[in-house]
């Protein structure tokens, strides 16, 4: 299922996820960008329909003309010919004060409310696998108006009922619980893009809801690759595959396959 999907397409899964993500981003909005696929997707959006998208990086870069794909959100390319090269305090304050429309992150494991684990697998005290921790993810998930997650490996191991560790807030335990905990109101996870489809969150229950299926993926694939039940309302559309133009641009953005080759 990783390669060679759809009619006439020899595009890769990473290319598809990138294109689907890029199309979600609106021009003239601020996007807080994480490392990896979020960067390539935002760069693609900037080269297509969103030339004035405001890219924000947690280490201090705002509005760069990215000359090539940064390997870190602190890489000097994140402020190459930028509008602002500032501090993390300035960036995080802007997010906390409500300036940032989209947060854009990768994630390892998620529950039905869009809560994310990037801290440990197993017990926190003596983990089976120690992961890096929050980094800036908890801040993005707390402060951005709409957070988008990209996950390449949706399975019963990554779409789980109970996270080993709740690193970054989605809707916590459901409607109202972000506000109850003290997080800013009216924000939270917006979309989740996996290798199988695109998801949003049901307005009333804040539970994950299927919005689109990728080419060649069935409803059954989506459900069997999740521990929790995924809401499906009516007819679900199919994701548009990458266009030739998008694929050419992605090749320019990541010529060595640093992100797209993975």
């Amino acid at each position, binding site marked *: 299922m990783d390669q060679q999907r759809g009619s006439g397409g020899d595009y890769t899964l990473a290319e598809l996820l990138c294109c689907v993500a890029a199309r979600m981003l609106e021009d003239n909005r601020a996007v807080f960008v994480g*490392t990896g696929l979020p960067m390539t997707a935002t760069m693609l959006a900037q080269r297509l329909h969103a030339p004035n998208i405001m890219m924000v990086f*947690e*280490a*201090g*870069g705002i509005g760069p003309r990215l*000359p*090539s*794909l940064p*390997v*870190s*959100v*602190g*890489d*000097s*390319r*994140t*402020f190459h010919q930028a509008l602002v*090269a*500032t*501090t*993390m*305090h300035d960036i*995080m304050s802007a*997010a*906390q004060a409500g300036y940032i429309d989209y947060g854009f992150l990768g994630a390892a494991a998620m529950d039905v409310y869009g809560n994310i684990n990037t*801290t440990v697998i197993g017990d*926190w005290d*003596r*983990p*089976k*696998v*120690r*992961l*890096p*921790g*929050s*980094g*800036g*993810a*908890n*801040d993005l998930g*707390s*402060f951005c108006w709409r957070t988008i997650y990209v996950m390449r490996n949706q399975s019963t191991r990554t779409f789980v009922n109970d*996270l080993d*560790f*709740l*690193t*970054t*807030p989605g809707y*916590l335990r459901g409607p109202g*619980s*972000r*506000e*109850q*905990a*003290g*997080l*800013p109101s009216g924000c939270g996870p917006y979309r989740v893009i996996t290798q199988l489809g695109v998801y949003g969150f049901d307005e009333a229950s804040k539970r994950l809801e299927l919005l689109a299926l990728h080419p060649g993926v069935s409803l059954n694939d989506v459900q069997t690759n999740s521990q929790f039940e995924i809401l499906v309302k009516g007819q679900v559309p199919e994701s548009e595959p990458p266009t030739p133009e998008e694929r050419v641009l992605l090749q320019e953005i990541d010529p060595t396959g*640093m*992100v797209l080759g993975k």
Partner: protein
Amino acid sequence: MTDSIDILAKGQGELIGWHDPDEHRAWVRDHKPRGLVDKRMSIREAVESFVQDSDYLAIGGFGHVRVPMALVYEIIRQGRRDLVMAGKTGVHDIDVLIGAGCVSRVDCAYAFGHELRGLSPSGRRAVESGTVRVVSELSNGTYQWRFLAGMMGIPFIPVRGLAGTDTFDKSAAIVIEDPWSGKPVTLMPAAYPDVALIHVHRCDRFGNAQIDGIAIEDVELARAGRRVIVTTEEIIDEEEIRRQPDRTAIPFYVVDAVCEVPFGGHPGQMPYRYFFDEEHIGEWLSLSKTPEGAQEYLGRYVHGVADFAGYLDLVGGMVRMQVLATIEKGGRGKL
């Protein structure tokens, strides 16, 4: 306004690096230099003088960017033990310190990973086997606000993140009701590292430092650190500082030592000066897959040389540095 303030939630993480604000003021009064004193010294002298076993250490920069690696290697060379690390997107720096057995605890926003380059074998092995303990969790944003509170000399700072998560539960933060809005608000305790290590582009002999590009959280960290060692690509004259005083990101009165170390951020990137040495970073990531490999790396690049100049020779000397400089100045990341 309410008459009394209740604690609504309390993180169970260990409180690292906090001091009573009056105790800290007195410490500053008695220890920090307000005179224009020449603070130039060697890396060896700076580490001997200001880095002790069991210190709470915070390293400037971000990821592999503008990190004072010459100091990190010297701390290993001098065999410091039982350090408590601020894990604030620490990558190669914290990883080699852990591999060398210098670290016992981590206050963790981000560590044990190398961003896009993958997870860290050395850091993971240490935590998973219990030789290094993570004693608290937080986020990058809330960590730098702990330094902001430290810099301001206040005991805590209110923030609107972290709450409701396990990251909060394992932090040293608390949630109270905001007396004005009535909404829950998270209080981050101030943090004062025993030692802050920071690498800059230019600095005068007194410690007035300029940083090109993003300052990340080094403005706050330098002012919150009890002892501050600045390494610099070059020492510049005081008159150059005075010509553009708005460029002084770190002022002399918070700085204890100034060390001139060209390419002192290798194998990391120094914005506008030199690019990541992917070959060297890759060598560490590959060797550190086993404890023996990590020791081989440290034996060769740290203990096998007398100082950072010896290390630079070993990794390719000025020929290699010029290659990295050319890549960085071209703005293209190809090696």
